[in-house]
C-alpha cells in the first residue's frame, strides 16, 4: 500500500475544515447571544404610552368613549392585554386580581367581542378598572404586543417601565412586579 499525497487532493479537506471552523465560531456566538434574547425586551420601555385611542367597553351604559389614560395620571398602573379565547389568560386571572388590589389595571381585550368578553369576566372575575376593546389588533401593534396575555407597568409620569410577555405567574409577580411597586 503506497501513499501518494498530492497537495491538490488536500485542497477539499483544507477548505472544508476552514468552513467548519468558522461555522463553529458562528455557532459559539449564537449560543451566547441566545441567553440575552430569551427575555423579550420591549422597545417601549422608558417611553411614554403609545398615542392610540382605545374604545372602552362599558357594559352598563351604552356610551362610546375612549379610555383616557389621564384618569390614572400620578398613579402607577398596569395595562393587561387579554382575550376571552386565550387559555393562558385564564391561568393568570387570579394573579391579575391580586395585582388589582394594589394598583389600577386596565384590561385590553385583544381581537375579542364584547359578548364573549363579558362571559369571560363573569367566569374568571373582573379585576379591571377599565376595559378597552382592540378588535382589529391595531392597539396591540402600537404597543408592540407579541401575543396575549401581556402586561405593562406604567409609572407616575406615564412612562412604560416594565413589560411581561406571557401569563403573569406568581413568581414573576413576586420577583419582578412587587419590587417595582415598592
Amino acid at each position: 500500500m503506497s501513499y501518494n499525497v498530492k497537495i491538490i487532493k488536500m485542497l477539499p479537506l483544507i477548505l472544508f475544515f476552514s468552513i467548519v471552523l468558522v461555522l463553529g465560531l458562528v455557532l459559539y456566538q449564537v449560543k451566547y447571544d441566545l441567553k440575552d434574547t430569551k427575555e423579550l425586551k420591549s422597545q417601549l420601555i422608558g417611553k411614554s404610552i403609545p398615542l392610540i385611542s382605545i374604545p372602552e367597553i362599558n357594559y352598563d351604559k351604552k356610551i362610546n368613549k375612549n379610555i383616557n389614560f389621564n384618569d390614572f395620571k400620578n398613579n402607577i398602573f398596569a395595562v393587561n392585554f387579554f382575550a376571552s379565547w386565550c387559555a393562558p389568560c385564564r391561568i393568570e386571572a387570579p394573579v391579575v386580581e391580586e395585582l388589582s388590589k394594589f394598583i389600577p389595571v386596565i384590561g385590553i381585550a385583544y381581537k375579542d367581542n364584547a359578548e364573549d368578553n363579558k362571559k369571560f369576566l363573569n367566569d374568571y372575575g373582573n379585576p379591571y378598572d377599565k376595559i378597552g376593546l382592540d378588535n382589529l389588533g391595531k392597539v396591540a401593534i402600537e404597543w408592540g404586543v407579541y401575543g396575549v396575555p401581556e402586561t405593562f407597568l406604567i409609572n407616575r409620569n406615564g412612562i412604560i417601565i416594565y413589560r411581561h410577555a406571557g401569563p403573569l405567574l406568581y413568581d414573576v409577580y413576586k420577583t419582578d412586579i412587587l419590587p417595582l411597586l415598592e
Partner: protein
Amino acid sequence: MIPEIGHILLIITFVSSFIQSIFWIITLGSRNTVNLIILQKFAVTNFILISSSFSILLYSFIISDFSLLIVTNNSHSLKPLIYKISGLWGNHEGSLMLWTLILTFFTYLISRNKSQISFKLLSSILGVQTIILFSFLAFILFTSNPFERLETPPIDGKGLNPLLQDPGLAFHPPILYLGYVGLSVSFSFAVAALITGEINQIWARQIRPWITIAWSALTLGIALGSWWAYYELGWGGWWFWDPVENASFMPWLIATALLHSVRLLETRLILVSWTVLLAILGFSFSLLGTFIVRSGLLTSVHAFATDPSRGIFILIILTIATGVPLILYAIRSSDLYTEKKIEFSVFSKETALLINNLFLSTATLTILIGTLYPLFLDAFNGEKISIGPAYYNATFAPIMAPVILIMAIAPFLNWGTKINNNFSKKILFIIFITVLGALVLSMIKGATLFSIVCGSLSIWLFSGVLINFISQTKLNNLKKGEFRSWLNQLINNNLGMHIAHLGVAVFLAGITGEQFFKTEINGRKNIGDIIKIGDRSLKFDDVKFESGPNYKSEMAIFTLSKNNNLIDTLKPEKRFYPVQQTQTTEAAILSEFFGDTYLVLGDGNKEIGWSVRLYYNPLVSWIWGGACLMALGGIISIFRNRKTKPNIIIRNTI
C-alpha cells in the same frame, strides 16, 4: 407504555448499530464472505427495528397521545388525519425519525444487491451506512428524543404551525429526505471505494440508480417547497434565495454534476477521483443544509428547533462524516485508478460533460459563498447583511447559461474523436429555430434583452431536445408492436434523459414568463371597484367574516370576467389561528395553462378599503411542471437496462 417500547427499540438499534460498526471495522481486511452475510442480516434487523419504532410514534400521532411532548407540540385533536400524520415529520425530532427510517430502508435495499459488485465493496458500503445510522441515532437519543413524556398531559395539543397545514408541504419533507438519504448511499459507495481501493464500471453502474433516485427526489422535493411558498406564503414569488432554499439546492446541483460525471466514469473510466469527491460532497452538503436549518443560525419558517446544542452535535457529525472521507480522499484517491490518457475531440460528449461538471460545481460554489458569507460577517463584526437575488442573478445565472447551451447539443455528440456526421446540420436547425423564436420574443410588449436571452435559451433547448429525440429514436429503428417492448426501446434510447432535459426547457420558459412578463398591481380597493388586467376585468364584490375549524377568516370575493363572461371567482383570505396566535395569508390563485392570476388581501376595512395586491404571472406553472418533468425523466432512466458489458477493472490494495 407503548411509547416506551418505541424508545427501547431505538436504544436497542443504537447499541446494536454500534456493535455492527465495530464488527465491520474488525472484519475489514477479512476475506470471509460470512461477514457480508452477517452485515446483510444486520441491515434487515435495523430496518425492522426502526420501522417498528417509527410505527409506534406514528400510532401516538394518530390517536393524539398528548402525553408525548412531540404530539402536544405538533398536533391537535381537531386536525384532519393527514395533517396528524404529517405532524410527525413537521418537526425536528419526528423528521429525524423519518430520516433514519429511510436510511435503514435504503441500506436494506443495498444489502439485497445481487449483482457483480464484489463482497468487499458491498460490506464496506453496508458498514459506512451503519456508522451513519449510529451517529443519527446518537443525535436522536441524546438531543432530540421523540418519545419524551410530559408529566401532566394537556387536554389538547398546540397544533401544527398553520403554515404547515398544506398538502404541498405535508409531502415536501419526506420527499426531500428521500433525496438527502439517497445521497448518503452514493456517499457510502464513494467511501467504500476509497477504503477498498476498488472502483470500476460496475461501481459506476451500481451507484447510478441511487444518484438518480436521490436527484429525482430532491428535484421533486424542492419543487414542492417552492410551489408551497408560491401558493401558501402569498409573497408572489417562487424562489427567494433564502439560505434554507439554498441548503437544499446545493446538494441538488452536486447531485446533478455527479449524475453526469458518473456517466463519464461508466463509459470512459475518466474523472474517477472527481466522481468520488462529488459523491462525498453531495452528502456533506445535505448535512451542511441540516446544520444551517437546525442549529439556530437562522430563523425562518423552516427553522425547526433552534437549539445550539443540537447545532454542535450536527457540526460534529458533519466534521467526522466529511472530514474522515476527505482525509481518505487526500491519501488514497491518487491510488484509486490510474486514468489512461484517452483522446477526445472538442466536439465530443467528454468535453460537454466536463464543462457541465465544471460549471455546475462553480455554480454550487457561488451559492455556498452567498449562503455562508452573511453568517461569517455577522460572526466577525456583527454586521448584518442579506444577500439577495441581485447577487445570484449576477453570479449564478451567467454560470448556468453555458450549461443550458451545451445541454441541447451534448446528447447528439459522439464519444471520443469521431465527430457526428449530421452535427452541423442539427446545429443549424437549432440555431434557425432559436433565431426565429428570439425574433418572435422581441416583438412581445415589454421584452428586454434579458428576457429575450432567457427565452431563447429555452427555445434553444426545446429544439435541441426535439431533434435529439427524433434522431435517436429513428436511428435505432423503433419497432412498433407490443406496448411494453416499444416502451422499453424508448427507455433504452435515453427517454429519461430527453424528458429531464425537456423539463429544463419548460422550466426556463416558465422563468422567462414569470420573471420578465409579469404584471403587478398594488392598491387600496373597496367593494365595488373594478381592476383591469389586459382584456379581463376583476370586480371586488364583497368581504365576509367566517370561522373555520381552527381559525377565523376574513375573505374577500372577487369575480374575474372577460367581455362580461364570468371566468372565475377569486377568494383571497386572511386567516387568524388563535391557538398559535398567528395570521396567515391565503392568496387566491387562478391557475391556468398560460398564466396565473394571483390575488392577495391585505389589511383594511369598509371605510378605507382594503389593500390588495394583484399579480398576473405568465407561464408560472411551467416552473413546477418543468421540475416534475425533470424528476419524471430521472425516474424513467432508473428503469433503463444497460446491456453492454463493462470492462472489469479491480484493484485490491488492502
